[in-house]
């Protein structure tokens, strides 16, 4: 044998450990996770559950900011604390046990409240990938959210309160290339064939084939040929209505070979072509992609522009020039009935056109990087290839600052439409804000002391009414909610925290890996009915 004996790629211990998740987000997702640094503010039960679900899959590092000491209540809802830790720094006690979960992960802590950190070390938050807070007060959340908004760091403020789970996600701008859509329509360009595709298909003459060959022509070829024929009779259109599609299907069906008795053979490839008529869509730019291309950040690049926008600008130019109105070819061919040789030939035609498109895109990206004085290495050819594969499904989120939720005028506008529905779970968001007010006024959680439950109900009701009044909203439809909240007395239920913690960790991973669309932007879980809901505030 000429080549040196290849080493079998025995997986490293680390890849073995992460094998089951690499199959979900790929090694580039894992690499992103391993270089991320997450900050948790307040390591209560919920906070610890979130970190647990980030440490296990191998996040790079985490930092806990917590000035509290461990109490009996903490032991009750935090699995990782035992009685000996009562009275110790909560940040320190928690971090030790969390680090044992995964030796690949680094962790440190600051034994101070977030107020102190904001006061003494304003640059503290500058380098985190995501910041997560649990149970922080109104005053702090306003300051912190403004700070993180400026820094463009995703911020998730969450709470586990009795049977209620709540998260408000703040992100100024988040772009996703890999959204992992459910059913992606194949990008075949049959209505706008590129030259090499046209040449290949035109060279195939189905009509002269014997059954064996005929039954193994890739359906793409059949569909293309029948579509051409159909277009000649229909002014170059693409079939849109059911009737038009049916007439194209009829054309395809007519091409199936008959046996000696005049009965059509069972030709699977033709069946596939008939099925594919449904997914036949004109090659164009989807509206959400158009919006990205027409976005201010895309049109006017600066020396600080992020790779996504530089590639988007290159895409815009590509569409206007080489693409002639179309996105770069995705270059993947679905599985189909065909003989290997013709399938591979067809696949290569798509492959090489996609490679060509990606190359043009890469050159444009390089040019743009030079123009805005960014390093040519900041976007690799691999990045551009990945981008080109997913241009039709990429996603842009622009969020709102949590501090705005505390501006009565702005919040009233956002809230009002949701509160018209008396069953809306958003009522819990209102109640949690009421609890905040209650704490400011009375220094405890409503119902925290058993003998105070009844009076607290009245007080909480008044806090909530005041808030609703400030937002010019009507009173709550039912008082039950207020009673329920007072019954909780500020208690944290572990199972609710475990559930919500899993959800928040999942959202955090979406931000870090830039895969999948994150929740936009408020998530509420009602553990009494098992209902979850998302709202955009």
């Amino acid at each position, binding site marked *: *044998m*000429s*080549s040196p004996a*290849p080493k*079998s*790629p025995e*997986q490293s211990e680390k*890849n*073995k*450990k992460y*094998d*089951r*998740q690499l*199959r*979900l987000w790929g*090694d*580039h997702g894992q*690499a992103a996770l391993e270089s991320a640094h997450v900050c948790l503010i307040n390591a209560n*039960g919920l906070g610890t559950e979130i970190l*647990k*679900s980030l440490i*296990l*899959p191998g996040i790079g590092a985490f930092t806990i900011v917590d000035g509290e000491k461990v109490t009996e*209540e903490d032991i*009750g*809802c935090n*699995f990782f604390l*035992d009685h000996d830790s009562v009275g110790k720094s909560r940040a320190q006690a928690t971090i030790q046990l969390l680090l*044992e*979960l995964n030796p690949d992960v680094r962790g440190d802590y600051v034994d101070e409240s977030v107020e102190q950190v904001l006061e003494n070390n304003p640059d503290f938050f500058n380098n985190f990938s995501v910041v997560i807070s649990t149970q922080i007060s109104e005053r702090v959340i306003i300051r912190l959210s403004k700070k993180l908004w400026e820094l463009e760091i995703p911020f998730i403020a969450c709470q586990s309160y009795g049977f209620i789970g709540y998260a408000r996600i703040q992100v100024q701008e988040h772009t996703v290339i890999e959204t*992992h859509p*459910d059913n992606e329509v194949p990008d075949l360009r049959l209505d706008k064939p590129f030259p090499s595709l046209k040449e290949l298909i035109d060279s195939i003459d189905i009509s002269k084939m014997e059954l*064996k060959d005929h*039954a193994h022509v890739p359906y793409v070829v059949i569909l293309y040929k029948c579509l051409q024929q159909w277009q000649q009779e229909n002014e170059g259109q693409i079939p849109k209505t059911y009737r038009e599609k049916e007439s194209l299907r009829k054309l395809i069906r007519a091409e199936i070979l008959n046996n000696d008795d005049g009965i059509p053979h069972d030709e699977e490839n033709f069946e596939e072509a008939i099925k594919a008529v449904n997914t036949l869509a004109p090659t164009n730019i989807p509206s959400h992609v158009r919006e990205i291309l027409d976005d201010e950040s895309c049109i006017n690049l600066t020396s600080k522009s992020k790779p996504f926008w530089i590639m988007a600008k290159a895409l815009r130019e590509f569409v206007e020039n080489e693409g002639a109105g179309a996105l770069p070819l995705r270059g993947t061919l679905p599985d189909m009935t065909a*003989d*290997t*040789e013709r399938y*591979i030939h067809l696949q290569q035609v798509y*492959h090489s056109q996609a490679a060509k498109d990606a190359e043009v895109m890469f050159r444009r990206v390089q040019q743009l990087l030079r123009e805005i004085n960014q390093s040519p290495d900041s976007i690799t050819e*691999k990045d551009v290839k990945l981008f080109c594969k997913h241009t039709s499904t990429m996603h842009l989120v622009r969020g709102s600052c949590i501090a705005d939720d505390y501006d009565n005028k702005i919040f009233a506008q956002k809230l009002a439409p949701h509160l018209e529905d008396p069953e809306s779970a958003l009522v819990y968001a209102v109640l949690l804000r009421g609890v905040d007010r209650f704490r400011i006024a009375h220094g405890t959680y409503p119902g925290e002391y*058993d003998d105070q439950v009844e009076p607290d109900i009245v007080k909480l009701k008044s806090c909530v009414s005041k808030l609703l009044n400030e937002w010019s909203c009507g009173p709550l439809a039912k008082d039950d909610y207020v009673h329920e909240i007072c019954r909780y007395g500020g*208690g*944290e*239920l*572990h*199972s*609710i*925290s*475990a*559930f919500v*913690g*899993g*959800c928040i960790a*999942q959202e955090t991973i979406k931000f870090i890996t830039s895969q*999948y669309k994150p*929740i936009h932007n408020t998530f509420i879980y009602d553990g009494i*009915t*098992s*209902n979850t*809901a998302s709202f955009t505030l």
Partner: protein
Amino acid sequence: MAASIAGVFENDLQQAINSSKVFVVGAGGIGCEILKNLVMSGFNDIEIIDLDTIDVSNLNRQFLFHKQHVGKSKAEVARESALSFNPTVNIKAYHDSTMSADYGVNFFKRFAVVMNALDNRMARNHVNRMCLAADVPLIESGTAGYEGQVELIKKQLTQCYECLPKAPQKTYPGCTIRNTPSEPIHCIVWSKHLFNQLFGENDPDMDVSPDTADPDAAGDAGMAALKGEANDQGNVTRVTTREWAVKSNYDPEKLFRKLFHDDIKYLLSMGNLWKNRTPPKPLVFGEVPDAVAGCSNETDAVLKDQKIWSVAECVEIFSSSCRNLYSQQQRLDLGDNLVWDKDDKDAMDFVASCANIRAYIFGIPQKSRFDIKSMAGNIIPAIATSNAIVAGLVVLKAFYVLRGQLENCQSVYLRNKPNHKNVQIVPEACLVEPNSKCYVCSPKHEQMGVVNGSILKADDFLQNYELNIVIVQRCLTRDGPLFEIIGSETAKPGSPEKLQPENGQTDDDDDVVHVIDGESTSNATSSIRKRKLET
């Protein structure tokens, strides 16, 4: 140590939690999380069972286990870890199969609620049946990647696990695997069979040599010359693959020649097979291409594992894994066999290289070792977050069960992305009623219209066997028996059926299907076949 959350839990719930004995079936990803949630909710009396031991690939989510625990019992380590944080709870761990006869109906009757955290259908079916028999509420759950679900199963109130037919686990016809593969999975299945033929337990259903009884090849002229070599079972009786391999000392070159040259030539001689198919091309050892078709641009694959090997590389890996497996086997006691394991380096290398060589011969796209591992090992992706979410829901449902509020236990589905209503965790609107025709949970069995020629499918309570009962109607003779078991007249040629169940187990009184004795007497012909499991 349990929470002092008296205010949050209603009094009756608090009491029920303190006094209830609960059972967690499975100490894997979901099981670890459930155990933690139970302990943290104040449960005092918990039993947990798992047959498995800890593997490195569990550590990304099964947080009660650490590296030093690899190889130990999941149930026992989970118990120890949970106790180290909460020493006052009573946890009993069983390192055993829940399907063992030790855990009968009376065992299950002791629990207020059973929570499933399993990873396979057979065990789920079993616990489902036990809980129905014991009339204990069962909370069933599962995750796959980002998705998951939780459902309550309660006798005569909800659907049971087997009320709706589940999609069958995919199997492939023997002749596709042995003669005419057309997809990568066919080559992978063939390679796993080959592994068992060469190194594992011999199973006649897993033959890898050309199948001359293939209906597609019937009436084949080219076959006539070779007919003398085939016996009535359709196998070439030159010698079995195993005997042949032993005789040649598992010499990789000789094995290669037989598997990828001689056998392929033989297949080519069955001309009928290739009338409408692209014929395979036999390979000669030492004359294989060192390039990967259509993959020249994939040089930037990050993990070596995800690169597609050239055929020359495959041959090298085939040779070295063959030699290693042979020496592994030699170290075993006589009569012992290797068991294929996706996490064993040589076993996985062997299957990946063989599958790709065979794929190349048949003009089928080759796959990376990483992908082949997924397919050969039936790997379901798993992450900590989905398990945490689902286990949280399981214990919240358990609260309702303990309070007797079963109407609040609608099934909940965790989706990988929000649905059209922008909801990602979707509860069912109401409980789903049992299927009155369900053969597992329906209290009355309906007339099933069994007539001459009906084929009844049956399995036994422990699901060791799957029976096809073919009903043959005969006229009643005055002194003849009411029923007669004739035998396995439908045994397929080419795949000899096992007529006797192994291990001396019988399944006479546990059959689930009841044949209704109609006006005429039927004679049942049965063929018993050991359930095939693709693992």
